[in-house]
Each structure stands twice: as structure tokens, then as C-alpha cells.
């Protein structure tokens, strides 16, 4: 049985839902369930998680049964899934860095981290551009938030 490209996406998403739903059911069941007429805190999450798991299973199952030529929608022929690992990791690292830096290292460094990590591709090829972007953003942010709106943030390391 060969998997068509469109199926791979559907199969993956189906399995993903099945897993999430499964976890939801396990964790949801740890809270008091109560009854249908007197629901406890666990009832609703459990029911919804069960629904998600069911839908995931159905989705995955139907994706396996799809024959060639019956692929739904415009997915067929779109090529493999692009995972974009490097941009994914760098940009996420930037957001996390902001979180780590803002409280104790201040706004300036936090923004710098986001810009540097976000522009990872250009650090060596266009460093001045990255610097300019960073400085402009820092200036706007400090002026607007710390001076203009009086947010209780530090600009520089406390």
C-alpha cells in the first residue's frame, strides 16, 4: 500500500489528534467526574478529549484507505512536508530568549536577542542591516513603553 502525499498529512494529523485526545482522557480522568447531571471538573475535559481521539482515529483511518486519484482537495502533488527546522528553532529561541531576558536583563537586551536570533540568516552577510533594525526597534519600544506608557520594565539590566 503506497501512501499518497496528501495522505501523509492527513495521517499525521490524525495520529496527532489521537495522541492528544488520549493524553487528555488520561489526565482528565484524574479529576472528579461526577455524573452527567452533576458534572465534576473532569467530565467535560474527558468527553472532549474522547471526541478528539475519535476524530483523530477516523481521520487517520480514512487517509489510509484513500485510493490514488481520490485524494481530496488540492493537496495532491504539493510535495513533501517542509519542516524548516532551522528557522523554526531560531525564531522560537528568540521568543524564549525574550522571556528569559526581559525581567532581569531589560528590554534592550531582550529585543536584541529576538532580532539577532530572528535574523540568523543574515548575521554574517548583512550585519549592518540587522544592527539598524535592532536599534530602530529598541528606540521605538523604549520610547513608547517605558517613557510614554510608564510600564514597569527595565530598559537595562537591573
Amino acid at each position: 500500500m503506497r501512501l499518497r502525499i496528501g495522505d501523509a498529512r492527513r495521517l499525521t494529523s490524525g495520529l496527532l489528534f489521537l495522541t492528544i485526545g488520549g493524553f487528555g482522557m488520561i489526565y482528565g480522568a484524574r479529576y472528579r467526574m461526577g455524573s452527567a447531571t452533576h458534572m465534576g471538573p473532569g467530565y467535560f475535559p474527558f468527553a472532549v478529549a474522547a471526541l478528539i481521539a475519535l476524530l483523530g482515529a477516523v481521520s487517520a483511518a480514512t487517509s489510509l484507505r484513500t485510493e490514488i486519484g481520490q485524494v481530496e482537495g488540492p493537496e495532491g502533488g504539493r510535495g513533501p512536508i517542509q519542516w524548516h527546522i532551522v528557522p523554526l528553532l531560531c525564531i522560537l529561541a528568540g521568543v524564549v530568549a525574550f522571556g528569559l531576558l526581559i525581567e532581569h536583563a531589560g528590554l534592550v537586551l531582550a529585543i536584541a536577542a529576538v532580532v539577532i536570533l530572528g535574523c540568523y540568516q543574515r548575521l554574517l552577510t548583512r550585519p549592518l542591516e540587522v544592527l539598524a533594525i535592532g536599534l530602530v526597534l529598541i528606540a521605538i519600544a523604549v520610547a513608547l513603553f517605558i517613557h510614554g506608557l510608564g510600564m514597569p520594565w527595565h530598559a537595562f539590566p537591573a
Partner: protein
Amino acid sequence: MLSRRSLVPLLAAPLLPRLAGRAWADEAAGFPEHSIRMIVPYPPGGGGDAIARVVSPKLQEALGQTIVIDNRPGAGASIGTDLAAKAPPDGYTILETPGAALTVNPQLMKVPYDPVRDLMPVAMLTRAVMVFVVNPKLPIQTVQDLVAYAKANPGKFNFGSAGNGTITQLSWEMLKLASGTDMVHVPYKGSGPAINDLMGGRVQGVVESVLLPYIRAGQMRAVAVGGDKRWQSLPDVPTMAEAGYPSVRPSAWYGVFAPRGTPPAIVTKLSALFRKIVSAPEMAEKLDGIGMVPEPLDSEDFAKVIRDDIETNGKVIREAHITLD
């Protein structure tokens, strides 16, 4: 035999407290040298935020430094309170919060701070007047009517609250316990929806402090005011004490705290200032509009109130079996 060396400490001894005292006062004299951070453990507009924003401009004027309001909502005020408790005790971080964060929540859930040991009471600012109201269509005029109605309809009277474990629930539970009635608690997310359902007739009673406009418009009927002091804005409404239920004493106050270890001189200075601001006549008017009365208490009196409230609320929580599942 006393050598000269041992004489010096002996002679210096009586001077020491005076020297230390002067350093104390000096500390407070120079304070504050830069902006002060006032943590409010509620989102903008919620909980103690309104009071903070009303009081802080006046404080700014008096101290000549900016007061930065830092909203840190979450986890029933625990996040903000914890932050304040663990802040450096130099007087530049203070906490402004309603009482629930300290007298109720720690008894219902685990909080990462000790409300009595980790925070120093600076001053109490105001007390919210909790008014017990019912839907005007009901044949209830007084507390006695209310109790009689509830006894005649066990399990049918619904009272709405701003949520599980809030003062709005505890206050009504106090009444339940004192009168021995069977009323059903319906929790909401905040008082707004509870008020909505009261007017729509889905719940029959609510207790809150911001109900004056509704009462005046006849959309709700005030039955009693919690505690033992009548409210000047509702002069004809009796207190729970007068109605025969002195144990129904909701404690909804707003106060200022500092982390333990903050220099006493600074605490005293701030305390005096806060109390002065809250006692000003224009302030009383503004507060009245949000259902509060100024109640300036200094650190010691405040501490006593806090201890009493922790005990009272603890009792209610146990006897009414209030839990967070």
C-alpha cells in the same frame, strides 16, 4: 579592673540606641530616592487596581517620585503577592491588595508565601461595604423575611457569587451558618454575570459592594449591610448585627503591604502618608461611589485585623465545607 578599652563600649552603650535611631530616621528622610513599584495582583481594572490608581497619584505628589503600578494577575492573587513577598525589603516595592489574597486563599490552596510572616502590614486603606441584596420581586424586606423564606423553601434559594472561595461566597455562607438555612451557592466568573442573573431572576440573592446604583434604581432590594456599622449611603438599611446575626461580618478590605524586613522607619512614613491620603474628604466621595469607606489603620491595628480575619474566615471555610475540589 576596668581597662580603658572596656570603658569605651560601656560609655558608648547608652548612646547606641540614639545613634541607631538617628540613622533610622535618616533612612526614612532620604526615602524615596527613585520610583517605587506598587504591585497589584489583579489585572487592570480588577480587584484592588481601582484603589491603587486612585491613591497613587496623590502618593506621587507627596513623595515627589513616580509610583509605578505593576499588575501581576493570576492564581487568585498569589502570583503578585508572592512576587512582593520575595522582593528586596528596601521600601521600593510595596503590595496593594484586597484581603482575600491573604486571609482566604492561603487557606484554600497552597501558596508559595506565608501571609503573616512574609509580609508586613503597612496600612489598611479602605473597607468595602458588603450589601446583601435580593431580587425585588421576592416578598423579602428584612433579614428575618429572608431567613423565613429560605426556611420555607429549603434548597430553592440560590445565591450568586463572584467565584468559589471569594469573599462574596464566604459572606453569604456566614449567613447560612448563622441562620441554619439551606441555600444553594451558584458560582460565577466575577460579580458582573452574577448581578445579571440576579436581575434576570435566576438567582435570588447576591452580596457585593458595588450595588448602590442598582439599589437606588429599584432593581435590587437591600436587605442588610454586613458587619456592625451602617453605611451613610444607605442609612435605612440595618446591619447584620442589628438584625441579630453579628457573626456575619464580611471582611473585604484593601491594604498596603511591604516585604518583611523593610526598615520600620520607611514603613511608618508610608503608613502615615497612605492614611492621610485616604482620609482626605474628596477621597471619601470617590470611594463612596465604588462602595467603599476609608478605614485608615496603622500597621499594628491592621495586623490585628488580619489575624482576626484569618481565624474567622478559616472557621467559615471549615464549617461550610468550602473547598476547591
